[in-house]
């Protein structure tokens, strides 16, 4: 049983609070990705789970055992480091077998286990090599092997793909995901790469300035971001967020700003309310001028291969539109952008938190 529970976990460095009152319940077999920008506390949190850093406050359980004050060697977790941290003086086989030698297992057992792990990771031909004779991808697999060989209760991975080139990263990403599907070992994975988070996670914990910004499946976090931060962190290009006012006109709510008029499709009568309005670039469509929408001028068109991104300016706000190539617009062209009401996100102007609203059902255009 390797459920990991965090309760009020806090870490301060002098006056700086790196991780603030973190509570998480990671189920057995889950692949939880700790996602966030640099300095958001995700690595600090992982190091506390590993036991490499004592928490200032809070408690930590692995299964039913309180491991808050246990040293790393007595926690049943293995870690893969960003730099791989392979022992440079040892061969691949000795590197993988290192944790077993520490536990004084019989030699024959170590040899068998190393061979088994090496076969899983396609390292069998490299067992006698030293780390310096390996490519980045091979080193990464040896680091994984050293974690795998122990059969730990949980894997902790600290940006393990960040030193690989783009192509290798995609391949290794798939391998790690496949390994997790096969072993079903609880995994906590730290990254700042949203693609890794979206493709590998069963749940994402989005961190910002040491606090948990949102916890949910990749779809939940992407489709219903809990805050402006979550909305703009996930997605490329980032979600467009503009200041607007929600106003009731003829019993129907709509968002208004200079050069912007979008129906929210809600029948209600409420006083005017300033909000932050968010819409993803792929949910904006180009419509004939004059209708309601966002009036903007195209400033640049970026070719992404299968898609194009049009960078536009609406008043003082930059807005991007993403769609299949060609979008059919050119730089300097005036356009009107529209979006379905159920694709609009509203956030409180002060706190930046998501405002819950019920979208009216909208018939698909025929």
């Amino acid at each position, binding site marked *: 049983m390797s459920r990991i529970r965090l309760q009020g976990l806090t870490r301060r460095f002098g006056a700086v609070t790196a991780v603030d009152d973190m509570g998480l319940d990671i189920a057995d077999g889950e692949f939880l990705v700790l996602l966030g920008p640099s300095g958001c506390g995700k690595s600090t949190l992982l190091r506390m789970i*590993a036991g*490499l850093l004592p928490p200032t406050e809070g408690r930590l359980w692995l299964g039913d055992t309180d491991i808050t004050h246990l040293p*790393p060697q007595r926690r049943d977790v293995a870690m893969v480091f960003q730099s791989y*941290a392979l022992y*440079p003086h040892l061969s691949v086989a000795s590197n993988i077998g290192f*944790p077993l030698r520490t536990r004084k297992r019989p030699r024959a057992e170590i040899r068998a286990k190393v061979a088994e792990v090496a076969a899983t990771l396609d390292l069998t031909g490299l067992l006698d090599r030293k780390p310096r004779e390996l490519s980045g991808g091979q080193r990464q697999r040896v680091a994984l092997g*050293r974690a795998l060989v122990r059969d730990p209760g949980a894997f902790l991975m600290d940006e393990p793909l960040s030193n690989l080139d783009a192509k290798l990263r995609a391949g290794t990403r798939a391998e790690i995901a496949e390994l997790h599907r096969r072993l079903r070992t609880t995994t906590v994975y730290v990254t700042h790469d949203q693609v890794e988070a979206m493709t590998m996670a069963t749940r994402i914990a989005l961190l910002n300035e040491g606090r948990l910004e949102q916890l949910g499946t990749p779809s939940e976090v992407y489709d219903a971001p809990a805050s402006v931060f979550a909305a703009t962190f996930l997605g490329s290009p980032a979600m467009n967020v503009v200041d607007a006012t929600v106003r009731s006109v003829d019993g129907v709510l709509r968002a208004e700003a200079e050069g912007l008029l979008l129906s929210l499709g809600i029948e209600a009568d409420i006083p005017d309310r300033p909000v932050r309005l968010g819409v993803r670039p792929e949910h904006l469509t180009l419509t004939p001028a004059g209708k309601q929408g966002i009036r903007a001028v195209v400033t640049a068109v970026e070719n992404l291969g299968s898609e194009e991104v049009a960078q536009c300016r609406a008043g003082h706000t930059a807005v991007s539109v993403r769609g299949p190539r060609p979008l059919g617009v050119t730089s300097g062209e005036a356009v009107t952008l529209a979006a379905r009401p159920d694709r609009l996100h509203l956030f409180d102007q002060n706190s930046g938190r998501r405002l819950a609203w019920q979208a009216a059902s909208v018939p698909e255009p025929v």
Partner: protein
Amino acid sequence: MTTEVVGESSRARRLGGHVVLGLLSLVCVFPIYWLYATSLRAPQDVSSLSVLPWPLSTASYTEAFAKNDVLGMLVNTGVVAVFSALGQLLVALLAAYAFAAWRFPFQRLLYLMFVGTWLVPFQATMLPNYVLLSRLGLLETLAGVIVPTLCSALGVLLLREHLNSFPKELLDAARMDGRTSWSALWTVVVPTLRPALAALGILLAISAWNEYFWPAMVLQRSNAVVQLGLRSFMGTEGNDWGPLMATAGLACLPVFALYLVLQRHIVNAFVRSGLK
């Protein structure tokens, strides 16, 4: 055309550089050559100024061996050099590891004080050390020569710099793999730092081998180490140059041998230490 001119001038500069280096190495090597040349002259030619020692003679060596237990002295000096170097390495390794890998109160102050002892001249600690050895009954013993040298601020300073640039993730990985800090030191840090340890060890061994002043204080009544043995050929009525040079020549041989075998490490040691 331009490239040719540049090529010529760089060749001339390189030639000039070689001439300067050649002259400098001649200046450095000549005294050593003269030492061996003098040791190989016949006793009546010892003061001769001829560049080539001819006829060759081993009389000086025979006399040196007859007058002193040269082999015994070489062995003793070897013991002092090896134990002094190993002891300093061990102390420096443990201290540097503590300073680099651990966090404890007053760490910086303690480190500065530790390294500050390097700035205290030998002459200032010489007498207290001598009195202490006398009370411990270690005067006239090799242990008396070795023990006061064991805590080397230089070694701590150099190894701490190495350990500071040592990837901390390796230590974390060792802890995750189940090692204690002590076990990580011996199974991860020491094997990884082997080149630096070898370089520092050689540097310490050579300086202990060449040490004259401290052994001369501790071993006043004996010639147990070779640098002191040289004294016996120096007298008020003049120096016995032939055997003196022969013994000095023999004293240099182990250092030369070490240099030939471990040339790369020794150069490394001097470069790393930023000394000499």
